[in-house]
């Protein structure tokens, strides 16, 4: 009897807390936080903004809106890009000025609220694949400038594709609970005592560039782990590397120029070539940053707390290992199919971008990004040229691609590749 009463009380309290929390979540879902905040130091556009580029265009590129809101071969900003998540597929929306299918009817305030609170013009929660968790830090001035730029572009009539999500993830109201638990609706605050470049870099990397949305590991609630900022994560079959200042696991050993080359050209010799989702970031966003913003971004990344990424490949530079007497199947494939552009030495011939030595992707024993590139090819639009590698997914079997990946990882990365044909099949 007594125990029954205690259990009853506990259940009652839990239900009451749940009701209060839900009520709080539903009431506050459309609140964007402090909307009166003034433009902080670090926000806005850099002093060396080219005169040919509008403020809003620069900020739109720095926030990389286009990569997610432009489908392959589709109209810019008309949406329709698929995001395959563990609980279903969602599609990005049309953010052109079309009144019917885009955001032409939204007011500036509604657009600001969308980025600060993660709700649409009707107050309906948006899915956090839209990185409002980062954009919430953007200044109102910057968001309005982005809005003005988007409104100046051609309106495209493109109805949104319905999301394909399982229950309960298809219930948008539940996102109010997620927001109440994980979304801090706070504007960017420059850190006192830090340089102007650091604070500008922080604004670029967090609020605008939302680097953490891919590079920061997520907790069980699928929210970014703040203590693990930029420590590396895996999503949509790609590894977003550890980009903390750790010398071995992160990018601490890269020189300033190497970082700037990577951001502005998508390639830093002996360090990395941007492919897959990062190739899009370079193509749509980073290559447009001004020299002062590139320097600021570097200044910020230098001070990101070093982290030992769990699955990050060690940075030990490895010289190509000596070839054994008889060529393995992986080596035979490499010489026949890859060396034409990459050279047997991995130094690259077709373009500078074809250099394999030193890359993190060839040091990863799981060969995560390497197999993605072999299966799907790579295409990078940078500096007015297209850097291109064809896909080999249909040309070779799972076993062949596993053998090839293991050869590349051991020959150029000095790691023991552990890929099996089943692993490759899962990544197709």
């Amino acid at each position, binding site marked *: 009897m007594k125990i029954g009463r205690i259990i009853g009380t506990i259940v009652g309290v839990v239900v009451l807390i749940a009701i209060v929390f839900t009520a709080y979540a539903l009431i506050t879902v459309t609140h964007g936080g402090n909307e009166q905040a003034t433009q902080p130091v670090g926000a806005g556009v850099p002093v060396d903004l080219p005169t040919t580029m509008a403020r809003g265009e620069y900020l739109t590129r720095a926030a990389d809106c286009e990569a997610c809101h432009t489908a392959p071969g589709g109209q810019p900003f008309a949406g329709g890009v698929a995001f395959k998540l563990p609980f279903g597929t969602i599609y990005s929306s049309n953010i052109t000025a079309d009144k019917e299918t885009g955001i032409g009817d939204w007011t500036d305030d509604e657009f600001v609220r969308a980025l600060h609170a993660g709700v649409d013009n009707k107050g309906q929660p948006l899915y956090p694949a839209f990185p409002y968790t980062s954009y919430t830090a953007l200044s109102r001035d910057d968001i309005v400038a982005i809005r003005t730029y988007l409104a100046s572009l051609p309106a495209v009539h493109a109805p949104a594709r319905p999301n394909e999500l399982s229950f309960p993830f298809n219930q948008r109201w539940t996102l109010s609970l997620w927001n109440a638990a994980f979304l801090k609706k706070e504007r960017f605050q420059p850190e006192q005592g830090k340089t102007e470049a650091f604070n500008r870099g922080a604004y670029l990397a967090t609020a605008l560039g939302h680097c953490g949305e891919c590079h920061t590991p997520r907790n069980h609630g699928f929210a970014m782990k703040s203590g693990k900022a930029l420590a590396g994560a895996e999503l949509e079959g790609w590894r977003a590397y550890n980009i903390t200042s750790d010398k071995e696991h992160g990018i601490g050993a890269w020189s300033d120029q190497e970082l700037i080359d990577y951001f502005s050209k998508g390639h830093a010799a002996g360090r990395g070539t941007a492919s897959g989702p990062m190739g899009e970031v370079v193509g749509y966003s980073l290559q447009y940053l001004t020299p002062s913003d590139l320097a600021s971004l570097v200044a910020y990344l230098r001070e990101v707390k070093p982290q030992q990424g769990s699955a990050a490949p060690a940075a030990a530079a490895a010289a190509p290992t000596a070839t054994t007497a008889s060529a393995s199947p992986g080596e035979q494939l490499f010489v026949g199919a890859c060396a*034409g*552009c990459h050279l047997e*030495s991995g130094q690259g011939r*077709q*373009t500078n971008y074809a250099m394999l030595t030193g890359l993190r992707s060839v040091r990863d024993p799981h060969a995560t990004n390497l197999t993605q590139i072999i299966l799907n090819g790579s295409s990078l639009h940078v500096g*007015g040229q*297209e850097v*291109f590698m064809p896909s080999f997914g249909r*040309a070779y079997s799972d076993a062949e691609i596993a053998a090839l990946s293991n050869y590349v990882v051991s020959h150029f990365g000095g790691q023991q590749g552990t890929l099996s044909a089943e692993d490759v099949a899962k990544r197709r």
Partner: protein
Amino acid sequence: MIVLSINGQDTQVDVPEDMPLLWVLRDVLGLNGTKFGCGMAQCGACTVHLDGQAVRSCVLPVTGAVGKKITTIEGLNATDLGKRVQQAWLGIEVAQCGYCQTGQIMSAAALLAAKPTPTDADIDAAMSGNICRCGTYVRIRAAIKQAATGQLTLPQTIA
């Protein structure tokens, strides 16, 4: 309009930015000496020089060649080295059906420009991406050596 420097001449072409250089050379400019083989950088038939480096033109978007010196088989004889390679190819009578030979010659010329006296290993490495269905590999090796040394070289035979 895209401006390309081909065999020492600036040439204007009106083509999409992602068109492979090989398409531009053959279909737009009529320079048919460079061959289409596999279309995916696997056979070497489409090899041309970009600033002296042998590249596969079938997978090179045309914008990747802007601002660089393109040399095709039609322009190879502009240098002494190019002439020597051609002479060696004729002297040894390398070609059988001939389809891959443009690519073989271009790869060989790029090799000799970088390494005037290549070893067998150098030749293996540089020529590994050029496939010949007729199996003229032995004569190709002899021709490369003849072009390098200027001395008559007999193709290796099975003793």
